[in-house]
């Protein structure tokens, strides 16, 4: 029997996979993908709760999140392209001109 707890657990696992991806990967594109994973985990959670409480709000939020994730990806990739043009790198650790 698949209960709400299973869905929530899956969502949490996905979310933390995303979080650890952000923390441990060096390649900026992979970090982007990890952030997308976090957002999708959130979507799963919203849809689960929407189903559970029998309200439409959660579904709507999921669409909003998707739309904004796409917008975010567009901006993020644009920034990435710009950095690649100037610095010829997509490694997060190369970007530390500003510190302390």
């Amino acid at each position, binding site marked *: 029997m698949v209960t709400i707890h299973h869905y929530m657990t899956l969502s949490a696992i996905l979310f933390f996979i995303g*979080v650890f991806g*952000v*923390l*441990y990967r060096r390649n900026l594109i992979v*970090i982007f993908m990890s952030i997308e994973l976090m957002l999708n985990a959130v979507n799963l959670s919203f849809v689960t709760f929407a189903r559970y409480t029998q309200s439409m709000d959660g579904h709507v939020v999921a669409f909003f999140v998707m739309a904004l994730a796409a917008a975010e990806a567009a901006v993020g990739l644009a920034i990435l392209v710009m950095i690649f043009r100037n610095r010829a790198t997509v490694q*997060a*650790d190369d*970007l*530390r*001109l*500003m*510190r*302390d």
Partner: protein
Amino acid sequence: MENYLWVITFAPLAGAFVNGILAVSFSNSQRSVNERLVSFIGCVAPLISFVTAVGIFFHLRGLPESERLVVQTLFPWLVSGELHIDFALMVDTLSMVMVLVVTGVGTVIHFYSIGYMAKDDGFARYFSYLNLFMFAMLVLVMAKNLPVLFVGWEGVGLCSYLLIGFWYKDINNAAAGKKAFVVNRMGDFAFLIGIFVLFAVTLRLGHPTLDFLGVRELISEHPDAFATTATVAGILFFIGATGKSAQIPLYVWLPDAMAGPTPVSALIHAATMVTAGVYMVARLSYVYLESPVAMAIVATVGAATAFFAATIGICQKDIKKVLAYSTVSQLGYMFAAVGVGAYAAGIFHLMTHAFFKACLFLGAGSVIHAMSGEQDMFKMGSLGKKMKITSVTFVIAALTIAGVPPLAAFFSKDEILWNVFTAGVGPAWLPGFLWAILFVGAGVTAFYMFRAVLLTFYGERRYTDEAAHHLHESPPVMTMPLIILAAGSVVAGFVGVPAVLGGSNWFHHYLEPAIGPIAHHAAEVAGHATESAVHSAGGETHASHGLEIALMVLSVLVGVIGILVAFRLYLHKPLIPGRLAERAKGLYQLVYNKYFVDEAYEKTLVKPGYQLSDKLCFRVVDVWIIDGIVNGVGVFARLFGSAVRLFQTGLVRTYALFFLLGLLYLIYRLVG
């Protein structure tokens, strides 16, 4: 009309602002500032104040006597819990007199300054300061509550400091400014404590207020609650006044303050700022009337200062120093008056003094201007031939201060003497004693004033040919103010002709609503020791008329004797003073050196204070403890900062990691 009160204060502020900007923008440039523009702005600002003040005066006259009060609240200023203080202005009849004196005499002196300060490098700066002073002084006299008054009080102190050290490139001038500032700070400290004491009591009574009217109301309702407070606060306020108004023991700064430009000496250190203490005591009359002790102290210190400073005036060689000690002495008379509860008499003398002393100072300024900066009277003599207007106005003002009837000070000084004589302050012998001191002081005053007149304007010529070469009468912009002020010293007294001379003492009745306890309460208070004070105006009873006239004649006589002695010694037998000085060498040296008070202060207070601050406060407390703590904190904080900075690796990963750790902490604290 009350909506225009702000104009009175803010016109000079605007003038100060504009001239300040001009001064700053021309400070580094080679061009000099346009003096016409600066003087126009500088003089129009106080003129606007004066005209507005006259308008308010007529507005007040139109009101019934007991309602002569206009209030304008500009903005709520300090609001915190129980405390609610508005930045509010108030003009009652007492303030009105002060405002008219400040703006009227102030405007005249501004005009005079155009001539006196011409071609000075700091022309715009000078007018900016002078306007700023007008602003602060007007805030002081128009304040509706003690904190606003204190703002003005400190503001005039600041301007005084700035103007004494106006020619700051001479280290002595800067030092004089500093001395004035430091001495005043001592008084201000006491003044501030006085405010706190008063506030503490009103807070205890459940009506926290520092509003003049509010406190007045409260004292009328709960006189018992103020029994000791009135004494403590009264003395503290008076200590503040001894600083600002140059009374014993804090008078020492005023003679040094003559380092400033002479119009400043006239405006700030004679006519207006130094009278702030007298005004303040009169403003807080209802506090002093609750405390016979505080009143006796005020009166005694005032009389003592009056006499003491007058004697110093005898031996001064510098014309401005003579006038400075004369100011200290005259302020003593005013304090003696307000000390015995004769507030109207004190303010009356304040007003007449503003005219004749400003006239004397401006006359001295005219002389100094003509002599290219020479201030030693023994290098002058017979200037009257070359400087007709200056000498005539100076003599009129000198006659006034000597108390020659019917000039202004005759009325005001006699009112003071009569009130002191009939006062009920302190032990039974005190009023008579104080009267005697003031009486002798009046004679001494007449003597030293005419000594100055004769040394400067008459007798033999003692100046060099070089000085004679460019000796000249001052331009009209300087002589006109002299004429106006001299005219003022002649007529100003007629507003207060006492009943015994057939007058109605209009001035006294005009001030009545603003002074003492609230009217409906006055009857009860009259039972206090101050009966004669509140209803003074010079003896209502018919029997004392004879006595009053007798005293009047006596004081005129003593003044005339003083003048005659001066004539004898400095015109007819000019060798006698030197011989006298030879014979009583010790005494002469003592008086000439101002009783060595400055030296005594230097030895007993300044030196040990300096030693203390250097050896203990600086070398131990400051270097070791304070610097130690400050630097220690600094070093520690910097170390800490450097350590925290290590986390700022510049790596996004680190930032995300800290974000996550922070979140985990939040979750732990919230959920765990």
